[in-house]
């Protein structure tokens, strides 16, 4: 049962990938960038889900996937014209399919009506329907007369299409009956192929059964005997198969070795029969090669080679050359099948922890060696330097394991865009860039909600209604852009719309009405734009279905800040609004400012610090009984002594002998934190205090410094809030004693 559960889990993981591929493909088609291969990829994705679902008895999923697949098949065979409406329908079907997958995995109820309605719609497209699936599966191989001249051999309606393989068929326009197909195969086994007890000869024999075969062996890579690795593989076979062929069958021959060899399969129309003497020559060459290999100690037998059908047919060299070009093109198009493995995230995290410890240990060791008075140029010190480089490199590589491209989250957003566009009756196009930008997996996971909300806002509030857009001289279709890019060790994601921009007078009015700002406050444009992040601010006059889900932009800002990121807004009237998210690449490491307070070493997250300065006597003013403020560029900002708030000392430090760090808190207010001195800027690995102790006020976590000591990481927001709470309590005490 456990094995079954594990297989099922793998199936769902694969479903996620297939769904992503499906959506990606459909979006490409929507942008009119898709070719037949894209449609095939989309078809295969749905088909694989269907196949897997069938194996697990997920009937609802199978049924819907089948209908979907049938329609896609119509699209593939050209019976169903690809119109924007059809693509939209496909995208919505993909959404339902993904819902069905999710429900199959997590349980829950699917809205049967929605599925039924979509099934109907799909059936009505005319391409094919669930009622007559056979109609969509013409028996003879269908040749699509496409500009690219590429087609895929028809896969049996209920059979399993090979998922990861692209077939490129070169079809002559004069589709004469009885034409023979030739398949050119270039097959280069790798040593692994032999190591896994496979044999090239057996494969060649298998191929020989499929049709008439011509084989030539390229032995140019065979080294001199002295340099020959007895377990190496040096031969390449060029095979031309002629006959009534099914590429699927050809692929199947190589099914078990496809990762252990370089293989290219290319189909072309067969030409005239090859000269027999050529064939004989080739066979002779093969025999010579096989003999050579045997001499090299490979366990292979030459005898069966002779069984290869002779006389051998082949396409003329010209046809081969002609087919080489499209083959190359197809190869460059096909996604690189980079070998991947699935690893439990816990194991990766453990590895990251251990490497973090290694780094600390290494620097401790280096420090000890220096303390021992060993010369910098001694072998020990040089060795330690190398060790340091190595450990840093290991750390970077390990961190890279957790990094994932933002693509999946961007793809999820395209669904949000569709749904919100439907709900608001606006026509929206999502443009994404930089999907390959890599960020820590946890960051990606926690970005989904804020991004969803921002996209909703952009469409609901940002973009104008179609008629307003036309009136403003803009195209009816609004554009929402999502761009990710790496910038100086952080990832920056921009979400922008080409809408009307922020209506500043309205925002201001609302802020005044809600008591967020004073009536007579002097606010710059940027400050007004920033108001939408203020807690309790919501621009929708009536709470709409879309944005008004009780979540304001303040929540978005808070969740971004919780990730150690920042969010800013820029808006240009009539041109649109841009939100910019700047996020750390990983949550395990933090850029920190190492400071001294009351003899303790603390780390302040760099993301919170706006600037640091040395207070001057004329800038520090007392305000009330105990509070002090510092004047910076005309504004007065409260001074908070970190040592006092944390209880490290009772008497406030002399501001003139300290350093003030301007910090920005979640509610946009600025404060100046007083610390005794700045040690430096450093990347630190975040360690939890909660694991072995518990939450501590004013502390976000801990880290281990180079000397092996623990340093506390400040929670800036809590410290600012704490100092306010203290002030309020003192006020209350005073009132009480006065009363």
């Amino acid at each position, binding site marked *: 049962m456990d094995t079954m559960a594990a297989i099922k889990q793998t199936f769902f993981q694969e479903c996620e990938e297939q769904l992503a591929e499906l959506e990606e493909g459909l979006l490409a088609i929507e942008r009119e960038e898709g070719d037949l291969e894209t449609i095939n990829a989309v078809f295969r994705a749905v088909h694989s889900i269907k196949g897997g679902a069938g194996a697990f008895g997920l009937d609802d999923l199978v049924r819907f996937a089948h209908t979907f697949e049938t329609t896609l098949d119509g699209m593939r065979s050209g019976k169903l014209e690809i119109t924007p409406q059809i693509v939209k329908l496909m995208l919505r079907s993909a959404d339902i399919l993904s819902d069905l997958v999710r429900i199959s995995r997590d349980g829950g109820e699917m809205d049967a009506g929605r599925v039924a309605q979509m099934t109907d719609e799909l059936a009505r497209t005319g391409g094919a329907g669930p009622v007559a699936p056979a109609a969509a599966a013409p028996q003879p191989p269908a040749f699509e007369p496409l500009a690219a001249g590429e087609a895929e051999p028809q896969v049996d309606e209920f059979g399993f299409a090979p998922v990861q393989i692209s077939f490129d068929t070169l079809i002559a326009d004069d589709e004469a009956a009885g034409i023979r197909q030739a398949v050119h195969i270039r097959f280069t086994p790798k040593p692994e192929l032999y190591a896994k007890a496979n044999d090239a000869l057996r494969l060649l024999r298998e191929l020989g059964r499929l049709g008439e075969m011509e084989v030539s062996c390229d032995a140019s890579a065979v080294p001199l005997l002295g340099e020959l690795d007895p377990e190496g593989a040096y031969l390449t076979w060029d095979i031309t198969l002629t006959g009534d062929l099914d590429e699927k069958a050809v692929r199947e021959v190589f099914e078990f070795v496809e990762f252990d060899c370089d293989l290219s399969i290319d189909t072309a129309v067969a030409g005239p029969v090859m000269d027999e003497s050529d064939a004989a020559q080739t066979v002779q060459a093969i025999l010579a090669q096989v003999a050579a290999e045997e001499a090299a100690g490979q366990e292979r037998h030459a005898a069966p080679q002779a069984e290869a059908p002779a006389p051998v047919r082949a396409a003329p060299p010209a046809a081969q050359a002609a087919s080489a070009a499209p083959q190359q093109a197809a190869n460059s198009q096909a996604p690189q099948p980079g070998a991947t493995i699935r690893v439990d995230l816990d194991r990766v995290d453990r590895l990251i922890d251990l490497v973090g410890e290694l780094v600390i240990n290494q620097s401790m060791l280096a420090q000890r060696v220096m303390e021992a008075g060993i010369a910098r140029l001694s072998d020990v010190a040089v060795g330690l330097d190398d060790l340091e480089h190595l450990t840093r490199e290991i750390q970077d590589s390990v961190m890279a394991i957790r990094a994932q491209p933002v693509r999946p989250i961007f793809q999820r957003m395209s669904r949000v865009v569709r749904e919100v566009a439907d709900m608001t009756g606006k026509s929206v196009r999502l443009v994404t860039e930089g999907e390959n930008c890599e960020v820590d997996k946890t960051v990606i996971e926690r970005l989904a909600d804020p991004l969803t909300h921002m996209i909703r806002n952009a469409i609901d509030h940002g973009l104008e209604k179609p008629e307003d857009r036309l009136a403003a001289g803009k195209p009816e279709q609004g554009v929402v852009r999502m761009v990710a890019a790496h910038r100086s060790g952080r990832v920056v994601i921009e979400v922008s719309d080409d809408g009307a921009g922020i209506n500043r007078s309205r925002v201001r009015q609302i802020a005044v009405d809600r008591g967020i700002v004073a009536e007579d406050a002097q606010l710059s444009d940027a400050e007004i734009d920033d108001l939408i992040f203020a807690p309790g601010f919501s621009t929708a006059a009536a709470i709409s279905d879309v944005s008004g889900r009780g979540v304001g932009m303040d929540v978005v800002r808070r969740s971004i800040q919780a990730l150690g990121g920042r969010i800013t807004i820029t808006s240009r009237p009539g041109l649109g609004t841009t939100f910019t998210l700047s996020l750390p690449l990983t949550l395990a490491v933090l850029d920190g400012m190492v400071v001294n307070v009351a003899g303790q070493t603390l780390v302040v997250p760099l993301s919170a610090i706006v600037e640091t300065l040395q207070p001057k006597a004329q800038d520090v003013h007392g305000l009330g009984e105990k509070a002090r403020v510092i004047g910076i560029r005309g504004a007065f900002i409260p001074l908070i002594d970190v040592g006092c708030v944390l209880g490290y000392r009772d008497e406030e430090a002399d501001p003139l002998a300290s350093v003030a760090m301007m910090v920005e808190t979640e509610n946009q207010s600025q404060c100046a934190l007083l610390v005794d001195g700045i040690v430096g800027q450093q990347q630190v690995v975040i360690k939890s205090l909660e694991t072995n102790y518990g939450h501590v*006020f004013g502390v976000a976590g801990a880290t*281990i410094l180079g000397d092996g000591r623990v340093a*506390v990481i400040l929670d800036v927001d809590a410290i600012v809030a704490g100092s306010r709470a203290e002030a309020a309590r003192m006020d209350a005490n005073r009132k009480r004693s006065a009363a």
Partner: protein
Amino acid sequence: MTHAREHDAAANNELIAFRLGSQEFCLDIMSVRDIRGWTPTTPLPHACEYVKGVINLRGAVLPVVDLAARLGFAPVEPSARHVIIITQVGNQTIGLLVDAVSDILTVSSGSIQATPDVASELARAFMKGVIAMEGRMLSLIALDSVLTQNQAGQGLPN
């Protein structure tokens, strides 16, 4: 021999004995992860008096509890001679600051007596029982109550 040991283990407890001032205490050896010399700790803001701070144990950050202060004795002024016993309490790993580790004992469950009915609340809260050993008395510490979640979370300024 092996058989005899197994048999003993069923009925007996292996305890690690340590000193705090003039009194002797002991702990179940199975909860002890490590014993190390005193290293300076990093104090935590607003921590209880008995929480000496946190230390780095092979990459993990764990708190060190001054057991003497926790039991109501005078707080220890730690020196290089003091010892930190790293113990596992539930899911947490904590360090206990003690004067010295004195012995490893094997006692049968039967020889653990109930804590004598003394007035001190603290004594009753932290002792599982007492053991008489060669004319000495060792108190068996109940680790669970040394650093409860409640006390650990006590950090807000008040």
